[in-house]
């Protein structure tokens, strides 16, 4: 909003009330959020998005509202949508980077920063965030707990089923908890976990928005591999098999992996 003349709350309210198709709801929601009335801001934004489901700034604002309400996962979802709709939207990348740095998700922060640097090479905020990332990365000792997942949890199951390429358990925050997937190492596994965790969040929203109810799972299939993403309490299980493995067999493998993951997470809670 910098550099623009702010319209009064009354003028914005009148426009939204008289013209339901107006996109002034975004500015009005921002005004309410800044006043601390996130409930009204949220209602306005959600209602506006029903009429303008691909309005980039509305999704960005909705993310800011969720963040203000402490609902970070939902905020991440919204900014993820912004990224999908407008890959060159720098502001959404900057808020994402800050969030990732706060959550010590340095791999994600670096990915976003690289993209932001390409989009806005002269942006001083991008440079500042790079410095913050490097400082944070230096502070993390090599071989620390960050991503040091065990491969043993699913090892027996993987051996039982020929054609299994890997099984991973990823936490609700996108962090790899257990298992291995790619031969390229833990870093690749972590990135896959983070990306598919985001994809699962998006799938959940899609299912909910379209009135399909609760998400049960998602299958992504290429010419060589089939990835199944299944939600469990506190995370997701990702199972990769070769495409030649019959779908029914793969589904049984996924079910068993889910059971193992749920038992493991249950034990951890206790």
């Amino acid at each position: 909003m910098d550099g623009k003349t702010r319209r009064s709350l009354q003028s914005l309210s009148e426009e939204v009330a008289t013209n339901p198709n107006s996109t002034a709801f975004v500015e009005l929601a921002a005004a309410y959020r800044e006043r601390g009335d996130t409930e009204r801001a949220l209602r306005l934004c959600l209602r506006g998005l029903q009429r303008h489901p691909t309005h980039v700034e509305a999704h960005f604002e909705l993310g800011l509202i969720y963040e203000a309400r402490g609902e970070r996962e939902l905020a991440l979802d919204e900014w993820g949508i912004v990224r999908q709709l407008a890959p060159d939207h720098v502001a959404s990348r900057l808020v994402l980077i800050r969030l990732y740095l706060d959550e010590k998700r340095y791999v994600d922060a670096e990915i976003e920063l690289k993209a932001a640097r390409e989009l806005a090479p002269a942006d001083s905020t991008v440079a500042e965030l790079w410095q913050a990332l490097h400082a944070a990365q230096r502070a993390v000792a090599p071989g620390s707990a960050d991503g040091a997942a065990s491969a043993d949890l699913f090892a027996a199951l993987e051996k039982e089923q020929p054609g299994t390429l890997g099984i991973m358990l990823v936490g609700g925050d996108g962090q790899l908890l257990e298992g291995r997937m790619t031969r390229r190492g833990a870093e690749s596994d972590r990135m896959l976990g983070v990306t598919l965790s985001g994809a699962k969040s998006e799938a959940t929203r899609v299912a909910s928005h379209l009135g399909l109810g609760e998400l049960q799972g998602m299958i992504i299939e290429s010419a060589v591999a089939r990835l199944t993403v299944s939600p469990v309490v506190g995370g997701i299980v990702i199972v990769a098999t070769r495409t030649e493995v019959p779908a029914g067999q793969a589904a049984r493998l996924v079910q068993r992996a889910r059971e193992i993951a749920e038992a493991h997470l249950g034990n951890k809670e206790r």
Partner: protein
Amino acid sequence: MRTPYENLLAGVMRSPGVRGALVVAVRDGLVVDGRVHVGVEGEAVAALAASLYRRACRATGAAEGKGRFVELEADGGRIMIAGKNDLAIMAVLQRRANAGRVRVAVQRAADDLAAMEGQA
């Protein structure tokens, strides 16, 4: 009005329990052609599912021109998306639909779609 996608969409809609079939531009999620039952928001399905499809393809390192199939399963139904190039075919399924049968129909339609794109 007949469109080039008429037969392709009809092939997917023929399976019991399919409530909608759409040809969608993957890049922007816009509907190119579609047949949907009453109550199915075709444009919303296209926009949201295309976004999910792009994300899923990125997650698996998909390059354009390589076929991908994405299936979302929920309590109340499924969405299937398959494509090879710029266009994808989507199907909205009721819970009772035979997923295996529709999957074959969707993948066949995606092959046909890719062949049509190749000719264009």
